[in-house]
């Protein structure tokens, strides 16, 4: 399966979680952390969060918007939404393949 969020190394998974978190609207750092933790049951550390945010921002997949107090929300760009959709589609196909091989295909 080709990597669709390129050159993020060990931050590829946090980056995917962040993109999913931003897919329903802009969020600031703390909101992303709590959203990811609620969705996955695993904590996302602040250092990891900002390392991934910086990389996503550099690649134009997310963008910062005007800060509210000291919190700065981020949102998906059009390119980011495209990359996320492709990535999720690939993951869904891969998950289906795995479940079929296990004989536990989703209904």
């Amino acid at each position: 399966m080709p990597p669709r969020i390129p050159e993020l190394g060990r931050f590829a998974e946090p980056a995917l979680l962040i993109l999913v978190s931003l897919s329903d609207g802009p969020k600031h750092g703390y909101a992303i952390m709590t959203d990811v933790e609620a969705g996955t049951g695993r904590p996302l550390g602040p250092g990891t969060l900002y390392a991934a945010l910086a990389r996503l921002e550099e690649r134009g997949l997310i963008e910062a918007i005007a800060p509210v107090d000291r919190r700065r929300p981020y949102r998906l760009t059009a390119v980011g939404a495209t990359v996320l959709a492709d990535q999720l589609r690939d993951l869904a196909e891969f998950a289906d393949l795995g479940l079929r091989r296990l004989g536990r295909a989703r209904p």
Partner: protein
Amino acid sequence: MIGLLLRFYPARWRARYGDEFAALLGERQLGPFDVADVLLGALDAHLHLRGLGAASEHAKGFAMSLRIGGFAAIAGGILWFSGFALSSINQGSDALFALALGVGTLALLIALIGLSAFQARQYPRLVWAAFIVPALGAIVSLVGMVGMATMGDLPFIGSWSGWSIWAIGVLALIVGSALFAFATVRARALSRPAAIALAISSFVVIPVLLGVETLNGVLPEAAAPLVVALATLAFAGGWIGLGVSALRIDRSRPVAQAGGTA
């Protein structure tokens, strides 16, 4: 504690993210996991910032290609329509219309390069393959215009007159624009409605241009140029729409750009 943790990050990183990062750390009680994660994040920031200049230049390059492509698409659409439609109805100076067509075609070529460079981030093969035909068409039509200007109706290259070369180039530009529009719809980085409009209008404008003499015989005298003008307007409108969508994306990027360079 928060101030101390922030000190581990490079000054450039703190200048960009320090304030919001401090606000984030202040919103939760920091445990050993958080402190370790922040320290690892600081180490990563030091290592990462060494390569950040190159990454920022890369991002700037994409933003620049988007901006140039957007403005060129708008200018090309307007000039192409002005030159083509007005020359079709034979009003005003031929030289002026030829200049508008020539500059418009050059602008469309620049737009193709800029927008392709932007979209090729995700689908390089598809986008650059779709770029070749219209780009060649634009170049050939420009060569044809030079032939018309210098040789008139006489053969310019082999037995081909400047007009014949120009006409082939324009057809390739239009057909290629449809291919480029399909690639743009697939890449989904720019406006899909504008790309669909360009694709449809390309298919409409080809038979209209090829059949303009027939139209002159079938429709009232004033109607045929109007049909040509409308078809050309739709084609130019597709390019203008793509240009506007490119500039809209570019306009939403300054904060992100600032983040990359702080």
